[in-house]
C-alpha cells in the first residue's frame, strides 16, 4: 500500500452505528477528502436494536438492518474495509496497523469501537462458549445462530434480566419458545430503573408465560456426552434448569483496548471532551465506547444507546471538519417488549422521588424521577405523546410539582409549557 504523507485520509475504526454515522456526517459537514470505515464484521454498518426484536423473530433480513445500502457509500465516496481488524494505533507515525501486518496512514482518526458482550466468568463458561447452543448477543452472526433455535417448545434459558435479556424473552415467547429468565439481583432492570418499573416488567413477563426468577445465580452448566451442547443450567440453591439453548445478556464492555494501548486517556470508556475529541487532538471518538462530559448530568457518563451514537458521531464529525459544536443532548432510550412501547429520557440514578401518572394495570403510564424536586428522568409506557413532552421537561432541568405530574386531568404539556411555534413551510 502506498501512502503519501501529504494527503489527507480520515479513517474510522468501527463500523457500527456511530462509525457509519460519523462517515456520512463528515461528508454532510463538508469533508471531501479520502474517507474509509474499517469494521471487523462482514456487514455494512447496521442497527443493533432489532437484533433482540424484529431480526431475532425472523421478521426482517440482515440487509434491512443496514443503516444505508452499499450504493449510498459509493455515491458518497466512502471506502469500506470490512472483515478487517486494526491491531494497533501508531500515533507517533499516524499509522493504523492491521492484524495481518498491513498499515495505512491517517491524517485524522475516528474511534467508534463500540462494545462487546460481557462474558460469563463461571468456570464452565469457556467450555460452553465452544458449544453450538450457548450464545451471547451483540452482532448479526450471534442472532443468526440464536434464531435458528426459535422453534415451538424449545427450552431457552436467558441469563440476565436487563433490556437485552427481557427483549430476547419477549421475542422468544412470540415464537412459542419456553423461556426461563435468570437474574442475579433481586429484581430485573435493577441498574436502570425503579423497583416499581421492575415489578411491572416482571409481571408482564410472567403473565406472558416466562418463568422469571430473580435473586438466583448461575453456578455451573451441564453438557451432553459429545460436549458440543449445554443441556442444563445449575443455579444457587441446587436448582437445575434443563435447556435446549442458552442466551447470555449480562451487559456490555466498551472496546477501549486499542485506545488504551495507544496511550489515549481511558476511564470506563475512551475519554473525550464535549467536542468528542480524545486526549489526542487528531483523534475523535463516538458512541458506546466513549466516556464523555454530560452537561445534563454534570458529570462524565458512558451511554449504550443509538441516539448517543448518532448524535455524538455528528459532533465528532464537526470537530474533524473544523466545525466544532458542543455535545449536550439529553440521553434517551427505547425498548419494545410484547405490546409495550417503552421510551425513556434522562438518567434516573440518584432519584429520591418516584411519581406515577396513569395506570400500570392498563399498560399506559409515565413514571417521573425527581431528585431534590428536579425532574431528572421519565419512563413512558405506551405514551408516545407524553414522552415527547417529557423530553422537553427533562431537558429544562427544573423542578416540577409531583402532585401536578400525577394529575391526569391536566395535560402534561400544560406543565411543560407550549411547543415553540415554527414558521410554516411548503
Amino acid at each position: 500500500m502506498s501512502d503519501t504523507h501529504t494527503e489527507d485520509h480520515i479513517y474510522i475504526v468501527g463500523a457500527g452505528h456511530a462509525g457509519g454515522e460519523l462517515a456520512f456526517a463528515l461528508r454532510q459537514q463538508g469533508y471531501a477528502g479520502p474517507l474509509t470505515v474499517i469494521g471487523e464484521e462482514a456487514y455494512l454498518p447496521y442497527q443493533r436494536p432489532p437484533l433482540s426484536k424484529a431480526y431475532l423473530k425472523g421478521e426482517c433480513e440482515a440487509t434491512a438492518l443496514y443503516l444505508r445500502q452499499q450504493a449510498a457509500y459509493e455515491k458518497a465516496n466512502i471506502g469500506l474495509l470490512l472483515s478487517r481488524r486494526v491491531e494497533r494505533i501508531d500515533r507517533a507515525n499516524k499509522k493504523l496497523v492491521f492484524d495481518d501486518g498491513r498499515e495505512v496512514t491517517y491524517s485524522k482518526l475516528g474511534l467508534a469501537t463500540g462494545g462487546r458482550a460481557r462474558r460469563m466468568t463461571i468456570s464452565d463458561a469457556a467450555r460452553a462458549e465452544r458449544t453450538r447452543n450457548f450464545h451471547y448477543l451483540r452482532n448479526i452472526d450471534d442472532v443468526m445462530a440464536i434464531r435458528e433455535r426459535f422453534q415451538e417448545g424449545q427450552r431457552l434459558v436467558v441469563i440476565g434480566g436487563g433490556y437485552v435479556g427481557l427483549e430476547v424473552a419477549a421475542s422468544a415467547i412470540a415464537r412459542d419458545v419456553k423461556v426461563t429468565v435468570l437474574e442475579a439481583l433481586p429484581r430485573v432492570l435493577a441498574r436502570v430503573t425503579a423497583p416499581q418499573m421492575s415489578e411491572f416488567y416482571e409481571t408482564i413477563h410472567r403473565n406472558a408465560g416466562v418463568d422469571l426468577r430473580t435473586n438466583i445465580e448461575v453456578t455451573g452448566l451441564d453438557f451432553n456426552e459429545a460436549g458440543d451442547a449445554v443441556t442444563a443450567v445449575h443455579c444457587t440453591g441446587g436448582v437445575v434448569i434443563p435447556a435446549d439453548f442458552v442466551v447470555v445478556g449480562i451487559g456490555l464492555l466498551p472496546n477501549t483496548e486499542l485506545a488504551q494501548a495507544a496511550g489515549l486517556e481511558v476511564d470506563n470508556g475512551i475519554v473525550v471532551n464535549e467536542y468528542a475529541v480524545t486526549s489526542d487532538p487528531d483523534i475523535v471518538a463516538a458512541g458506546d465506547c466513549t466516556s464523555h462530559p454530560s452537561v445534563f448530568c454534570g458529570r462524565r457518563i458512558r451511554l449504550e444507546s443509538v441516539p448517543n451514537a448518532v448524535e455524538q458521531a455528528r459532533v465528532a464529525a464537526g470537530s474533524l471538519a473544523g466545525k466544532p459544536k458542543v455535545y449536550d443532548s439529553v440521553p434517551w432510550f427505547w425498548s419494545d417488549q410484547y405490546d409495550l412501547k417503552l421510551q425513556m429520557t434522562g438518567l434516573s440514578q440518584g432519584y429520591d422521588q418516584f411519581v406515577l401518572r396513569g395506570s400500570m394495570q392498563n399498560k399506559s403510564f409515565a413514571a417521573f424521577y425527581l431528585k431534590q424536586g428536579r425532574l431528572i428522568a421519565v419512563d413512558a409506557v405506551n405514551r408516545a405523546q407524553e414522552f415527547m413532552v417529557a423530553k422537553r421537561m427533562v431537558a429544562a432541568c427544573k423542578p416540577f410539582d409531583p402532585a401536578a405530574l400525577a394529575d391526569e386531568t391536566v395535560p402534561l404539556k400544560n406543565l411543560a409549557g407550549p411547543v415553540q411555534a415554527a414558521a410554516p413551510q411548503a
Partner: protein
Amino acid sequence: MSIRLSVVDRNGGEHEVETAPQGSLMETLRELDYGVSAICGGMCSCATCHVYIAPEWVAKLPERQSDEGDLLAELQFRQDNSRLSCQIQLQPEHDGLRVILAPEE
C-alpha cells in the same frame, strides 16, 4: 420497476429520487446524504424522520396511526401536512410523490 419521488432538502433544493416501491419512505430518505436521521430505525419512537407531504398528496396516503399522531403533536416544526416517513409504506401508486424534509428539532 421503480418510482420517482421529488424530495426537497432542508436548504430548499429539489431532488428527483428513483426508488423501489417497497419498504418505508424513511428507508429511501435515509439513503440520501441530505436525508433523514431516523434514529430509532422505524419503530415510531423518535420522530427524527419528519417530513411534510405536498398538499396534493396528503389525502392519497393512508391516515396516521395513533403513535404517529402522538409523536407529531409535540414537534416544534409540526404542520398539518406533517408525517413520519417511517410510517408510510411506498407503493407503485406513489410515483411522483413530493415530500419536503422538515427541519431537525
